[in-house]
């Protein structure tokens, strides 16, 4: 009975396992780095995680809608190249905002291309977005042939400050409540995204995304505009890729035509670690964000445990593999126990 309840609990809360995992890795990290929860350390960590976290939100939405986007990394590279080309240390404030707006549009246009190919030309998502990633990577390389560019120090400073306590410390309410003063604003950014999602989750639009991913045929039969919804998920992913590129560019302060390439597969692993199944129709962005933090904390642990350089890749991959195997292992073992009990019951 307890067993059944536990299984139901796991099935219903797909990111329960991710949460457990998150707690475990954070505790391991904390055991070696006792200032982990200092606001400044938390800040620094979240600042590093933020670009991938934003990217994973877009990836999660595409995956929930029944697709996958292998071009997100190339989109980040493209937007990163555009940002450092359009924004120089001399650029005026208004023009910076214009450039950011344009980059967001470029990201959405790139997503639109993916979306049209997948939803309307009915091409298979994996190969389609793999093909378009060549287009985006080529464009990034055309725009910015070699690493370079420089962002105004105001902008990089803003990214640091925004994500440090002082920026918010002067706001009256935060000043009055001491606990709020201790909360790094990066968490507030993430909290805003999560709250927004919790609100959107109730809307028909997002319900449609889940329905399209769960069973496209059935969704179509009940009148859901599956093709438009799919198109939409890729455009959203393009937008989030542009925002991830903005965060990445602000934290690096410069650009590279391959800056985002490694983020594609990380974003997918993060989504899966967060309890979203690749088949679509289930999961959420909270899980994806937890997945990103888990990935980041694993890398923290590796550096704090002084893992030798040559072993880091192996340790990293093994921990990820174990984390991925976790939910399946629990299910497999509980299946075995149930079968054993059933047999025992029949014998008695």
């Amino acid at each position: 009975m307890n067993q059944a309840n536990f299984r139901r609990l796991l099935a219903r809360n797909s990111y329960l396992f991710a949460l457990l995992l998150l707690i475990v890795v954070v505790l391991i990290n904390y055991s070696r780095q006792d200032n982990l929860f200092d606001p400044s350390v938390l800040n620094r960590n979240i600042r590093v995680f933020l670009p991938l976290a934003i990217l994973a939100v877009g990836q999660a939405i595409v995956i929930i809608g029944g697709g996958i986007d292998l071009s997100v990394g190339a989109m980040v590279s493209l937007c990163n190249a555009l940002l450092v080309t359009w924004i120089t240390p001399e650029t005026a404030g208004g023009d910076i905002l214009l450039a950011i707006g344009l980059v967001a549009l470029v990201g959405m246009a790139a997503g639109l291309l993916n979306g049209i190919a997948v939803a309307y030309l009915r091409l298979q998502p994996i190969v389609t977005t793999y093909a378009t990633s060549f287009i985006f990577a080529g464009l990034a390389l055309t725009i910015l042939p070699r690493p370079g560019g420089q962002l105004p120090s105001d902008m990089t400073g803003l990214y640091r400050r925004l994500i440090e306590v002082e920026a918010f410390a002067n706001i009256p309410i935060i000043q009055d409540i001491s606990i709020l003063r201790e909360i790094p604003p990066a968490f507030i950014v993430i909290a805003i995204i999560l709250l927004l999602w919790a609100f959107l989750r109730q809307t028909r639009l997002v319900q449609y995304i889940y329905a399209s991913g769960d069973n496209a045929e059935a969704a179509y039969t009940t009148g859901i505009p599956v093709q438009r919804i799919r198109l939409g998920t890729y455009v959203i992913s393009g937008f989030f890729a542009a925002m991830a590129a903005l965060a990445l560019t602000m934290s690096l302060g410069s650009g590279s035509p391959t800056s985002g390439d490694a983020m594609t597969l990380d974003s997918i692993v993060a989504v899966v670690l967060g309890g979203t199944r690749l088949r679509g129709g289930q999961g959420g962005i909270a899980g994806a964000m937890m997945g990103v933090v888990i990935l980041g904390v694993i890398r923290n642990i590796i550096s704090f445990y002084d893992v030798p350089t040559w072993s880091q890749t192996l340790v990293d991959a093994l921990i990820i593999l174990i984390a991925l195997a976790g939910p399946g292992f629990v299910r497999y073992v509980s299946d075995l126990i149930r079968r054993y009990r059933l047999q025992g019951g029949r014998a008695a």
Partner: protein
Amino acid sequence: MTTAKAKRGSFVPNFTSRLTPPLIALILAIVLFLLGGVISPGFVNANQAINIVRLAAFLGIIAAGQTLVIISGGEGIDLSVASVVTLGAILTFRLTDGQDALILPVLGLVMLVGAGIGLVNGLGIVFLRIPPLVMTLAMAGVVQGVILQVTRGELEGETPDLMRTLIAQPLIGPIPGVIFLWIGLGIAMWLLLERTPYGKMLFAVGINRTTAMLSGVRVPLVVVLTYAMSGMLAAFGGFVLLGFTDIVFLNLGGRYLFPSIAAVVVGGTLLSGGKGSYWGTMSGALVLQLINSLLQAQGLPEATQSIILGVVLLVLISIYGRQRAFRL
């Protein structure tokens, strides 16, 4: 009887129905090759043709296991091929250390190691229900990690002379051995897929796992076996590749990862599983290699090459990689 047949067999529909994706890919490969001659004179000659087939052979051999995995369905895909290729090459490089006598035993060991890695993939996918994409991706990381851990970046060894002679250099006339090897593998794969119980079961599993299970197919066994074979073939690909590259480096297989999937898809194998052929993958590998060689022959900048490759891939998969439309 004859009139009915004549009515049905009007030339055009009959012709188009015979125009299967592998055939389209093959025709495309020939057209691309001739197109190369039009764009840059001197592109079309026997040596060039042999060179392109030789290069395509490496991709084709590496994509063999990928074909099986993709046919097995259930979102089947193997992202660990690249690192297994690298591992296969490094193992051969180190263990033979240039000695011809050790080639065969080392080949056996290399394929066994590859099969073992694939076996773990299959077990994780079937019993722990990890999605193939992330399972094989994590495994790729583990294999890459093991390579780094063991070698510490110091890749010592030597390629046996015999391998170089047999694989990359002209063997019979101007044709290098790898092409014969590829043709042999093609025949073996055809036999495996079309003439063995395993092949029949693989397609059944790819079309619908539940019906396959109800028809008495041991689905878990077939899937695990398929991933094990994919690992084995990838390791074999690494072994063969070493005969061509002569040296090893840590990311030797990296550039074959996604092309191996693209070759399968361009060859008309459905990513959703249950339909496909290795002969299609062979044509797909030829097409991809031709596009690559054509782009390189133009001397275009890398960025432009990348964009054109992306557009061409999109066009290729939109010819027949399309999924079914929604119907009420």
